[in-house]
C-alpha cells in the first residue's frame, strides 16, 4: 500500500472528549432541518423563506467545516468516547457532502416548489441525510458508522417517494427501502460478527485485536465479518453484483432529487468503506484486496455493458454509475486514497450536473427519461446540450476534463498496488463506455428533435431555471479547470 496514511490508528481510542466542533457541521445541518420543519408547520411561509434557511445552514456548516479543517491540520483527534474522529479524511468527506447537498438542492429547487407544502419536508430530508452521511464518514466506531448510514439512507428512501402521486416513484421508494434495509441488515450482521471475533467495535480497536485473533480464535469469524461489512457498503455505492436496485430507483425517483440521492450515498459509502478497510482490516489486505479487485472488475465490465443497452437516460447513468463504482474501487484497492477522493469529488459534480439536465428534460418531478427526449437537444437548447456533452465526456474519462485525471489517478493507484490486470480491464471498459456516452451526443447533435403530436412548449425550448444554470456553470468550471490543472485539488487532498 503505497502512500496511504493510516488515518486513526495512531490515535488513542479511549480518550473521552466532547468537542462540538468535531460534529459542528452535522449539528448545524440537523438544526437547520428541524428549523425548516418547525417554521413550515407554524408559519407556512413561501419557499423563499426555506431557501434562506437552507442557505444560511449550508453557509454555517461550511464555515464550521473550514474551522474543523484548520484544526485537523495539527493532527487527528478522537471525540465522544471514541465515536467520532476529526481528521483530514472526515473533513474531506464533509466538504464533499456539503457541496453535493448545495448543488443537489439547487437542482431540486424547482421540484421543491412544485411539491407545495411537502417541499419543506424534502429540503429537511436532504439536510438530515447529509448530516447522517457526515456521521458515517467521521465515524470511528462501527456503531457510529451504522447510525450514520441509517440516518442518511432512511432520509433517501423517503426522498425517492416524495411525489406520492406517482406510482413509479412509489415503486422506486419501496424497492429502495426493502433492498436498502436488507443491505443495512447485512452490514450490521457483519458488525456483530466483528464484535464476536475481536470484542471491539471501534475501528482502531478491531485493528489492534486482529493479530491476536488470527492466532487465538478462528479467523473465519473475522473474515465473515469483513465480507458482510464490505457487502453492505458495496450495496450502498452500487458496485456490481449489488447494483440491481440502482437503475429502477434512479429511473423512478423524482428527477430533481436523483442527483443528490445518487451522489451523497456514494461519497459516504466509499469513504466509510476505505476507512474500515484500511484502518480496521488493514492487516487483512491480502484477503480483501483480490476480492475487492474482482468486484471492481465486475462492476466496470458489467456496468459498461449494461449501460450500452439502455434506452432510458437515468438507467444509463445508473449503470455508468456501477462502472464508476468499479473505477473508484480500483483506486481503493491500489491504496492511494488521494486519487480516490479526487475521483469521487469530480465524479459527483459531473453526475449531479448530468442529472440536472435530466431534471430539466423530464420535468422536476418526472419519473422516466427516455433517450428519445434528447434527440436534437443541441438545436433546442445549445447550452443544455453543451453542458451535458462536457459532463458525458468527463464521465467517459476524456482528457482535458477532470474525469481523465480521476481515471489516471485510480489507474496509477492500482498499478502501483500491483493490480495491473485491473488497470487494463478498466481501460478497455473505458473505451467500451464511449459507446453509450457518444450515443447521447449523437442524439443531441446529429439527429432531429422528435416532434410531439401537439406542438407544445416542451419540445421547443426546455425551460432552464437559473438554479440549474448555476449548477451547470459550476460543474463545467470544475470539470474543465481540474481537468487541465488538477494540482490545487490534489494538493488539498493530501
Amino acid at each position, binding site marked *: 500500500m503505497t502512500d496511504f496514511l493510516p488515518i486513526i490508528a495512531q490515535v488513542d481510542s479511549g480518550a473521552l472528549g466532547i468537542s462540538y466542533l468535531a460534529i459542528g457541521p452535522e449539528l448545524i445541518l440537523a438544526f437547520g432541518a428541524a428549523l425548516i420543519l418547525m417554521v413550515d408547520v407554524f408559519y407556512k411561509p413561501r419557499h423563499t423563506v426555506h431557501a434562506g434557511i437552507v442557505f444560511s445552514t449550508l453557509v454555517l456548516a461550511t464555515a464550521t467545516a473550514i474551522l474543523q479543517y484548520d484544526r485537523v491540520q495539527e493532527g487527528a483527534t478522537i471525540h465522544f468516547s471514541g465515536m467520532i474522529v476529526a481528521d483530514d479524511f472526515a473533513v474531506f468527506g464533509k466538504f464533499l457532502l456539503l457541496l453535493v447537498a448545495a448543488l443537489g438542492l439547487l437542482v431540486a429547487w424547482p421540484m421543491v416548489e412544485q411539491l407545495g407544502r411537502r417541499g419543506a419536508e424534502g429540503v429537511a430530508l436532504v439536510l438530515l441525510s447529509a448530516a447522517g452521511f457526515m456521521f458515517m464518514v467521521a465515524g470511528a466506531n462501527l456503531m457510529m458508522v451504522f447510525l450514520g448510514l441509517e440516518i442518511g439512507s432512511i432520509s433517501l428512501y423517503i426522498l425517492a417517494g416524495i411525489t406520492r402521486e406517482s406510482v413509479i416513484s412509489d415503486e422506486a421508494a419501496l424497492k429502495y427501502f426493502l433492498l436498502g434495509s436488507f443491505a443495512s441488515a447485512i452490514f450490521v450482521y457483519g458488525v456483530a460478527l466483528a464484535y464476536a471475533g475481536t470484542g471491539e467495535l471501534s475501528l482502531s480497536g478491531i485493528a489492534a485485536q486482529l493479530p491476536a485473533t488470527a492466532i487465538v480464535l478462528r479467523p473465519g469469524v473475522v473474515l465473515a465479518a469483513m465480507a458482510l461489512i464490505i457487502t453492505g457498503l458495496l450495496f450502498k455505492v452500487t458496485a456490481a453484483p449489488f447494483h440491481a436496485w440502482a437503475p429502477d430507483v434512479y429511473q423512478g425517483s423524482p428527477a430533481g432529487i436523483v442527483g443528490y440521492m445518487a451522489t451523497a450515498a456514494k461519497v459516504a459509502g466509499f469513504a466509510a468503506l476505505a476507512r474500515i478497510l484500511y484502518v480496521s482490516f488493514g492487516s487483512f489486505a491480502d484477503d480483501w484486496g483480490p476480492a475487492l479487485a474482482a468486484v471492481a472488475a465486475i462492476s466496470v465490465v458489467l456496468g459498461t455493458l449494461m449501460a450500452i443497452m439502455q434506452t432510458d437516460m437515468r438507467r444509463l447513468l445508473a449503470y455508468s454509475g456501477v462502472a464508476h463504482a468499479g473505477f473508484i474501487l480500483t483506486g481503493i484497492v491500489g491504496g492511494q486514497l488521494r486519487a480516490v477522493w479526487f475521483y469521487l469529488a469530480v465524479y459527483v459534480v459531473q453526475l449531479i450536473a448530468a442529472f440536472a439536465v435530466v431534471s430539466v428534460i423530464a420535468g422536476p418531478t418526472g419519473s422516466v427519461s427516455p433517450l428519445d427526449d434528447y434527440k436534437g437537444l443541441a438545436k433546442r437548447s445549445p447550452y443544455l446540450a453543451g453542458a451535458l456533452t462536457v459532463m458525458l465526456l468527463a464521465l467517459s474519462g476524456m*482528457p*482535458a476534463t477532470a474525469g481523465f485525471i480521476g481515471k489516471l489517478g485510480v489507474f*496509477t493507484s492500482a*498499478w502501483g498496488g500491483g493490480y495491473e490486470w485491473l*488497470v*487494463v480491464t478498466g481501460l478497455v471498459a473505458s473505451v467500451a463506455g464511449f459507446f453509450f456516452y457518444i450515443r447521447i*451526443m*449523437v442524439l443531441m447533435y*446529429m439527429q432531429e428533435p422528435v416532434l410531439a403530436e401537439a406542438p407544445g412548449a416542451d419540445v421547443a425550448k426546455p425551460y432552464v431555471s437559473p438554479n440549474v444554470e448555476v449548477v451547470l456553470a459550476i460543474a463545467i468550471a470544475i470539470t474543465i479547470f481540474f481537468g487541465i490543472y488538477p494540482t490545487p485539488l490534489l494538493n488539498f487532498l493530501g
Partner: protein
Amino acid sequence: MKFQILDALILTPIAAAVIIALVPNRRSELHLPLGITLSMIPLALAGWLFFAFEKGIAGYQFVHDSPWYEPWGMSWHVGVDGISLALIALTALLVPISLAASTAITDRTKLFVVFMLILEAGLIGVFVALDLILFFLFFEVVLVPMYFIIGVWGGERRIYAAYKFFIYTALGSALMLAGIIALAFFHRDQTGVLSFSYQELLNLELTDTAQLWLFGAFGLAFAIKVPIFPLHTWLPDAHVEAPTAGSVMLAGVLLKLGTYGFIRFNLGLFPDATIELIPVMATLAVIGIIYGAYVAIVQPDLKKLVAYSSVSHLGFIILGTFALTQAAVEGAVIQMVNHGITTGVLFLMVGMLYERRHTKKIADFGGIWQVAPWFSGVFLFTAFASIGLPGLNGFVGEFMVLMGSYATLPVAAIFGAFGVVLAAIYLLWAYERVFTGPITNEENRNVADLNAREVSLLAPLVALMLVIGLYPNIILDRLTPSVEAVLDRIEATTTYEVPDPGPLYEVLGGGHSD
C-alpha cells in the same frame, strides 16, 4: 515572464475558439471570416517558429518545462525539434485553408469553427508535448472535435463513420495509456520516482520482453491512427463522410499523429523491439502501399479514391520509418508534410467539384477541362506531385524513402516502388475519366472554373509543392540533426548499425554527416 511560443501556439487557437463562441448566433455570417482571421495568428506564430528554429541542433528548442503535478511526475513540458517543426507549420497552415474552404457549411457554423480551432490546438499540442501524459491528453482531445466535425457536418452515413472513427482510435489509445502508466512505474522502480517525462524515460533500461509489450501498446494506437493495414477500415468511411475541411485535417495532419508517434516514441523508447519488429512493420507497410493503391484504382468515387491513396502513401512513410537509415527516416518525415499538402489539395478540389455538381462519382464527370481549364490544371499538377514527379515535393519524399530503404530492406523497397507506378495509374486514370475527353453529361457544361477565393486558398499549397520539390533543404536542414539523434540512439542502445549512406546521398543534399 518569458514569452513561450509553443504555449502561445496551443493557446491562441483556444482563445480564438472562445472569442468565436462569444459571437452571438444571430450574427452567424461573422463566424467563418472571424475564424479564418483569428487562425492567422497561430499561422504567423508557426511561421515565425519555423524560421527562428536554429538549424543544426538535434535537441529540443523553445522548451517550456514547468511542473504540473509533481507527485505523479507530470509536467507541462513542451519543445520542438526538427521532426515536429514542419508538422506544426503544416497544421497551422491547413486550418485557415480548411476554414476558407468551408463556405458550404451553413448549419451551426459557430460550432464548426470552434471545433476546428480546438482541433488545431490539440494537433499542435501532440507535436510539441514532451510529457507522455500531456501527449496522451492532446492525442485524445483531438478525437472529440473531429468526431463532431464528421458526425454533424458529414455526408449520409456520417453517424456510422463518426462512431467508427471514434471507437477505433479510442481503443488504440486506451492500451497506450496502460503502456504510459507502465513506463512511469518502470521509472519508479529504477529511480524511485514516478515520471512521465519523455526525456527521462529515454534513460530507462527495459528488458526485451517489456519493450515488445510496450511497443505493442504504443504501436497499436499509432497503427490505427496511421492507419496501417489491416487496421485501416475506419479511414475510407471517415474520409468519405467527413466534410471537406474534415477530410483535409484528417488526411493532412491527423494521420501523421500515428507516423509521428512511431518515430518519436516507438523508435525512441523501444529500440530493441523496433529492431526486432522491422520485418513485421516493413511487410505491413508494403502491403499497405500495394493494397491501398490497388483498391484506389477500382474506386468509383473520387473521394474514396483519394482516401485509399492515403493508405498507400502512408505505407511509404512507415516503410521509411522502419528502414532506419538517415535518408529513409528523413524521407518519411518529409513525406508526412508532402502528403499533408498534396492530399489536402486533392480533398479540397474534390470538395469544390462536389459543391459544383453534388456528386463525387467519377462516372458522372468527363471533359471538365473544357469548361474549367484552370481547375483541371491545378488538379493535374497536384496529381503529379502526389505521384512523385521529379521537381515536385512528392518525389523528394518517395525517392528518399525508397533509396534509404534499399540499403536495409531491399525487397520491401523494390515492392514499395511499385506503389509509385500504381499511384500514377489510379491518379492519372481518374484524371482522364474526370477531366479529359468529350463532355458526355450535359450538367458538366455549367461547371465553373476556380474563383478568386479558391485560387487564393489553393495557391499557398501549390507553391509549397514547388518549393519543397525544388529546395527540400528548407525542411531537411532543420530535420537532419534530429533524425541523426534518433538513429544514433538506436545505434547506441542496440547492436544495430545504420548503414553508410554513400555518395549519392550527398548529391541529394540530405545530409550534414560531418
